[in-house]
């Protein structure tokens, strides 16, 4: 671990880790339900729209909502938070990780390999795969930067071309990405407007949502370093609508804390966060659970 500023013994990393560990044990059943649920709903939209049981407009709105719910369940899988080191449960990570991303057309292994690099090099201009989004100057800039498509991943592959483990996983994911592309191009010939409004457009909107709340807000205008690279922030939008990304900083400190256990973990860890000068830590309210964290 990097050299950290000295803190009082009562706020030592060992004690912080012990508290964090107590929130890193629960089985993340809600995430499995959300991930598998949204992907199943999204898949069911195709026959429902094609056979005129629901309109394409309604189907598209539902698909956009599904796309916004698609990433986080896979994100838990990327950190192994379903199996939690149990080899017998590893298949849950793999299954949820892949299945939930179908709505976004994202290959799980590309997401996993690049996300772990993002954790290792958060806010590093050369090494963080999400730096382009995190350094965007405005919300519009975020939207523009998310539209570069696969070019972003070509750059990441170039950066890590000598990292054999990364490249192996990345290339497996690239094949899945290619299959997604082929399926999309076959579907668009057979069902053009349905493909546009049920898959392509929702996926684009989902990616913008993801980049805005997962990459930009938590990492915008903060430094590099374990306790400095992600901030606590507030927003006009209740946190239930942006996947509680105001609390994303605790995920960067302890990625194995389950997403829905983060509010309680932050309440318990608040003195440590203040002692370590996590950006915005002073503003964390005493009660985080069931607090919408709105700031007008």
């Amino acid at each position: 671990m990097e050299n950290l500023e000295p803190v009082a013994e009562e706020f030592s990393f060992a004690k912080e880790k012990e508290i964090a560990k107590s929130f890193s044990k629960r089985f993340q059943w809600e995430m499995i339900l959300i991930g598998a649920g949204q992907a199943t709903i999204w898949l069911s939209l195709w026959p429902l729209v094609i056979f005129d049981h629901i309109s394409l407009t309604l189907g598209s709105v539902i698909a956009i909502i599904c796309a916004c719910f698609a990433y986080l369940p896979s994100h838990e899988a990327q950190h192994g938070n379903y199996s939690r080191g149990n080899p017998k449960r590893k298949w849950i990570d793999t299954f949820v990780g892949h299945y939930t991303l179908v709505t976004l057309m994202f290959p799980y292994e590309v997401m996993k390999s690049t996300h772990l690099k993002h954790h290792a090099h958060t806010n590093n201009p050369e090494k963080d795969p999400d730096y382009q989004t995190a350094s965007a100057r405005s919300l519009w800039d975020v939207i523009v930067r998310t539209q570069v498509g696969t070019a972003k991943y070509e750059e990441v592959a170039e950066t890590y071309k000598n990292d054999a483990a990364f490249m192996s996983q990345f290339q497996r994911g690239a094949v899945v990405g290619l299959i997604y592309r082929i399926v999309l191009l076959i579907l668009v010939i057979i069902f053009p407007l349905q493909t546009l409004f049920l898959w392509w457009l929702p996926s684009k909107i989902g990616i913008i949502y993801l980049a805005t709340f997962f990459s930009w807000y938590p990492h915008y205008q903060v430094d590099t370093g374990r306790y400095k690279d992600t901030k606590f922030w507030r927003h006009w939008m209740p946190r239930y609508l942006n996947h509680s990304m105001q609390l994303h900083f605790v995920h960067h400190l302890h990625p194995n804390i389950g997403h829905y256990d983060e509010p309680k973990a932050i309440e318990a860890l608040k003195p440590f966060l203040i002692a370590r000068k996590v950006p915005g830590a002073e503003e964390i309210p005493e009660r985080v659970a069931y607090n919408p964290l709105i700031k007008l």
Partner: protein
Amino acid sequence: MQKIREIALNHITKWEMVWFGLIFWGSIFNAAAIYFGINHSPVLWYFLGLSFGVIAKIRGTWLWKI
């Protein structure tokens, strides 16, 4: 097999935007033309999609440059 995979991936990396323009946007423009009752040959709409793809390939992006 490895060689074929390499050639295929290289081709897709280089020409992805052109193929995507032709097939994806061509199909969308054609379907939209049918929906709005515009009676032109589908070739026109696929050519328009192809043009989008070629322009995107030359510019290196579909939308704005960063």
